[in-house]
């Protein structure tokens, strides 16, 4: 029902020339092919949703459309003409603007100065501040944003900053607007306002490329959905008629069943008990949960829902303001990560580059990092180099590190192998509780399968595992039980029997829309 949509359907777009189009666009990064021959087109007046898992290539595609990145091969057509988008500036002159998740605002400058950054009005070589301010006001009014042009940006809320970022796109004549998860930090009211604006824009013939993970939004504003997976184009479907199941199938592929191992759980005694945990910044509010030996407990929820923050607070990497954390019957609130690691409790962070690995150091040093005070790498007060090499070599073999060179800097491995170097830490000593935070982000399918195998193996040996993931199939297939987080609190606890996609999704999406 959906493959025929490519060229003919869509009342408002009948016969219209695409605003922007890519043909067989490929983007290679060292060791990774982020995009592989992707075709994409955006018609005037449509909201075209890009859909896919983390690392599917959505971000790379929009950065190419916005001129921030250049494809390794393939062509880009703007209004039917082959165009080279050499920079964000060039794209902007053609009416293509993007609002990325990472804001490009300068916090110390005012709203007006930010709006016209790089395109300041000048008279006789001097800044024309009056005109700048006047035009900024016009743009903000037209968009219905209640923000004073003279405010400095760092005094604005995140939602207001987002509005400034969007307003920047309106500086020039706009024909293509790219929005990367724009509602992630907006309240319901602000979201409504944004959708109204999107409606007005599409009525004017502006095309919108929209990235979101939220099904409700796709239903509400989407016209067509292009699904990407592992950097490849999968399909383009109608947003109004395609079922969620179908979308998830397209997103994850048929391999879903094959990449997950069969796990039979035999939960033992309770290892971790969290009681009414709250953090001072309200990222975690009143969370209570338990984790038992030999089970994998999934933590699902959107980014910023508190699923990672909860375990960081338990581990001592983030302060807690109230509540108790009990590990094997012993209160561990307020202990440092070091103390927890010695007790047998390890947290492996989501972002391996910024929090997990020393990129310029060797695999050996990275793997052994959490075990430098453990017996097998020690020789009295000294390090046992031989013991360390033996331990790391064994782990590298076991995890199929490729290439198997433990002295090479981590930076020079592919994403999947970098992940292995970090995950290997969980085997460097006897842990009883291991928290994997997004263990498969930016990892290819083959490595993902071996990571799942690895996690299942740990649970099989009686380790208590917490699997924090934004990837729904991962939670569904890997865990014995799951907690769904929403805005810092546990929204639901789902036992194995109720662990279905609909159940989890209903706690992700529906209450949010209500």
């Amino acid at each position, binding site marked *: 029902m959906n493959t025929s949509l490519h060229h003919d359907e869509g009342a408002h777009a009948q016969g219209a020339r695409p605003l922007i189009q890519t043909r067989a666009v490929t983007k290679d990064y060292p060791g990774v092919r982020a995009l592989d021959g992707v075709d994409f087109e955006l018609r005037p007046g449509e909201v075209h949703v890009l859909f896919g898992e983390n690392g599917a290539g959505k971000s790379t595609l929009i950065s190419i459309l916005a001129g921030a990145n250049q494809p390794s091969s393939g062509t880009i057509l703007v209004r039917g003409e082959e165009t080279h988008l050499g920079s964000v500036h060039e794209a902007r002159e053609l009416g293509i603007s993007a609002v990325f998740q990472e804001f490009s605002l300068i916090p110390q400058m005012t709203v007006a100065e930010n709006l016209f950054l790089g395109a300041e009005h000048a008279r006789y070589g001097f800044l024309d501040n009056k005109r700048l301010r006047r035009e900024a006001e016009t743009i903000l009014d037209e968009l219905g944003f209640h923000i004073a042009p003279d405010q400095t940006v760092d005094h604005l809320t995140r939602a207001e900053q987002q509005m400034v970022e969007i307003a920047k796109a309106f500086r020039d004549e706009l024909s293509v607007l790219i929005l990367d998860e724009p509602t992630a930090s907006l309240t319901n009211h602000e979201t409504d306002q944004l959708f109204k604006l999107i409606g007005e824009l599409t009525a004017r013939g502006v095309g919108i490329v929209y990235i979101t993970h939220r099904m409700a939004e796709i239903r509400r504003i989407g016209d067509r959905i292009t699904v990407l997976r592992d950097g490849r184009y999968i399909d383009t479907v109608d947003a109004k008629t395609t079922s969620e199941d179908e979308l998830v199938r397209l997103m994850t592929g048929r391999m879903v069943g094959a990449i997950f191992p069969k796990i039979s759980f035999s939960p033992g005694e309770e290892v971790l008990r969290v009681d009414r945990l709250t953090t001072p910044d309200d990222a975690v509010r009143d969370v209570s949960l338990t984790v038992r030996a030999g089970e994998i407990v999934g933590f699902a929820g959107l980014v910023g829902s508190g699923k990672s923050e909860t375990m960081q607070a338990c581990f001592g990497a983030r302060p807690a303001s109230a509540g108790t954390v009990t590990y094997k019957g012993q209160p561990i609130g307020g202990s440092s990560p070091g103390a927890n690691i010695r007790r047998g409790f390890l947290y492996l*962070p989501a972002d391996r580059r910024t*929090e997990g690995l*020393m990129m*310029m150091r060797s695999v050996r*040093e990275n793997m052994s*990092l959490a075990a*430098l*005070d453990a017996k097998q790498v020690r020789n009295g007060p000294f390090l046992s180099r031989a013991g360390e090499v033996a331990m790391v070599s064994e782990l590298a073999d076991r995890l199929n590190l490729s290439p198997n060179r433990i002295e090479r*800097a981590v930076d020079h491995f592919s994403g999947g192998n970098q992940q292995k170097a970090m995950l290997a830490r969980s085997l460097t000593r006897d842990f009883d509780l291991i928290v994997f935070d997004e263990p498969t982000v930016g990892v290819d399918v083959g490595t993902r399968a071996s990571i799942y195998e690895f996690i299942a193996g740990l649970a099989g040996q009686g380790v208590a595992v917490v699997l924090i993931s934004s990837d729904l199939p991962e939670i569904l297939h890997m865990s014995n039980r799951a907690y769904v987080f929403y805005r810092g609190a546990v929204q639901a606890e789902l036992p194995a029997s109720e662990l279905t996609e609909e159940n989890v999704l209903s706690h992700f999406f529906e209450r949010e829309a209500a």
Partner: protein
Amino acid sequence: MADSATTTAPRRSASDMLKRLFVRLGILPFLLVIAIVVFTLMSDNFLTGRNLMNVLRQSVYLMIVSLGQMLALLTGGFDLSVGTILAISSVVGAMTMASVYAMAPDMVWLAILLGCLGGVTAGTLIGVVNGVGVAFFNVSPFMMSLGMASVGFGIALYLTGGVPVYGMPVAFGDVFGFGTLLGIPAPVWVAAGLVVALYVFLYQTPYGRYFYAVGGNLKAASLSGINTKATLFFTYVLCAAFAAIAGMLLTARLDTGEANIGASMPLESIAACVIAGVSLRGGVGRLENVVLGALFIGLVQNGMNLARIESYLQTVVLGALLILAVIADQIRLRYVASLKD
């Protein structure tokens, strides 16, 4: 290594070999070779055993300071107060020694012991303050050590009134300044001892690894159970202790306590480290290279002296070398990405 070498061997040219050598060893060996060749051509006295021993003796002070500076650089910071620490330890050490000696002229060794202890303690205290600021109050190492450089220099001048401190026992200078053992000067023995001790500490104990981990990725280190605050604190304490020891050795050589020594130390010690391949971003650098880096700077200074290059111009050369080393490091990083191991 082995298989990549065989696959590329047929097409490998001399320039490729040079490139690999550069990536592996950094800029320092090339600079050393160039310096030795140039200065040998410029002066007959350069490449003699006597002169080289001279170079070694002259560069030990910088070498010891560079050992500490390396720790600060490894953790992603640096210490601009090393010069001041030299001055403070020199002044306090000399004053303590002189007054103990004046009170008890018979107990020469007690005076020397207490003087050294006092000097090293005073210098190390500057590092304690640096460490507290950087580790516990998140002050940037730049501001912290720059501020302490001013504080320390002021204290040193205030204590002495700007006048050199005399009155230390003669034995102090005779032994630690001019003494030799087996034909090798005493300061060289001290430096060698410190190098060996630091080598063992850095590469044979887990604590040494922590410095690399903190500089390599602070968050990763913290999540791996390393006490990053304590590591940062001890970085600056150790750095100051090394500088203070250098200060006492220099005091012995000069036979006076001076508030004006060490002004060039911050630049020279950072230069020695950077030329030796210690990354300003933290996490990368080897001790043995830093030792060579300090020797290289001593060699260049000595060579320029022999070649009768004016001392004002010598500072120009030193600054230029530092910048050259940083540029070379950037180029090397680019090559590293293409060569990998």
